[in-house]
């Protein structure tokens, strides 16, 4: 499967945090799904999630796969956004000792991977700790 095709399909979520909001019960799904597990509804509208949230849990990766060798040790976190939606992402620009459960974070636009020197660049979201406290 072409990664370009898959990458392009995921742009609304990766670039704009676009969730699907059930028109029946308003439940948010990120990533979107076809049937609401709350009310069985099949109609959704796009909903842009907040870029503010907090760290719910995290793990420090000290021996990473080859594409992350420049970034170790790096942090992978479960972040709960203000909308209540939880997502998994890296916490960028942070040292492990700076992080704690409940820390406020902002979602930023970052490179999340590259298909080698000649392939496409994958952009998406990462969390960063509040810089201006």
């Amino acid at each position, binding site marked *: 499967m072409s*990664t370009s095709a898959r990458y392009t399909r995921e*742009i609304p979520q990766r*670039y*704009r945090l676009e969730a699907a909001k059930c028109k029946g019960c308003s439940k948010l799904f990120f990533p979107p799904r076809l049937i609401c597990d709350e009310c069985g509804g099949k109609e959704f509208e796009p909903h*842009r999630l907040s870029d503010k949230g907090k760290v719910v849990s995290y793990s420090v990766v000290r021996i990473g796969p*080859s*594409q*992350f*060798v*420049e*970034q170790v040790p790096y942090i992978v976190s479960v972040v709960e956004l203000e909308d209540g939606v939880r997502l998994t992402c*890296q916490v*960028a*620009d942070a040292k492990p000792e700076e992080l704690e459960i409940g820390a406020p974070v902002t979602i*930023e*636009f*970052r*490179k*999340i*991977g*590259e*298909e*080698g*020197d000649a*392939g*496409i*660049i*994958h*952009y998406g979201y*990462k969390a*960063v700790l509040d*810089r*201006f*406290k």
Partner: protein
Amino acid sequence: MVGIVGYGVYIPRFRIKLEEIAKIWGADALAYKAGLLMEQKSVPGPDQDTVTISVEAARNALKRAKIDPTEIGALYVGSESHPYAVKPSGTIVAEAMGATPYCHTADFEFACKAGTEGMFVALNLVQAGAVKYAVGIGTDTSQGAPGDALEYSASAGGAAFIMGSENLVAECEFTDAYMTDTADFWRKEHQYYPQHAGRYTGEPAYFKHILGAGRAIMERAKAKASDFKYAVFHQPNGKFPMKVGKMLGFNKEQIEPGWLVPRLGNTYSGSSPMGLTAILDVAEPGERIFMVSYGSGAGSDAFIWKVTERIKEVQNLAPKTRDYLDKNQIYLDYGTYAKFRRKIIMSESPQIL
């Protein structure tokens, strides 16, 4: 009347001090600091590039503009460090802003002048009535060759401006441009680092073009330096903008609010646009701002801005430039800087499989 509806900036969190670079190359750090009037520069993280910085700056501009992004009819990203040789940065930025698909987009290149080129075209498209809103962005993550004088100053950052004709925070009173074919700085296809003509980049390049554009717009506006509260120029180092400002009749107090280079470095296409954002952060209604960019090759764009009443409503709607510049930086040693900037040859390229 056309002008800026919203503005935003982004600076990465990482910094390297000039002493740390000089230490590696056996150079005299004090001589570099005195010669450049700089103490440190910003460095992009390994997951940041011209696109990611442009997106963050543009999102900050949207927070201040408070417009529907689908009403943006044109978006231009000016940079000399676009991540792709073929594939626009602007499409990615427009998607991330939510401005697609009815949006005209192009990437501009003109050394350090590419950012103000985007601003110039965006303003004039709005003036012509072709689009309701247009975005001009100037961003770079440029590199100087290891050990070269440029390595001490080439940094990372960007600024975005949403142009429109109503709810302005700054009206554009005049624009002008001055351009000649001058070979002072260049990079050919497939070359990783730029070349420059040493001292020739000064008098016949930077100074000639900024003075040319600056004097032309003063004459057009029938204005003098004392008519302006602020002045901002391209900032390749600390000395040049102060010197060229003095030659045009400006004093230190007019230049300092937008003079970011001592603690930021030279952000190339982002340089004078980011200086303008720092001024807008502190400006009061009615104040006038004089702005001249410079790009090697060579040319300058000049703008005269007049700040409106709405500025006070928007200054705190997004992070301020001096906050990005001075709060919570992470200082790097040269080894980590070299790794982040991919100056180290690895056994294989990082790859997603």
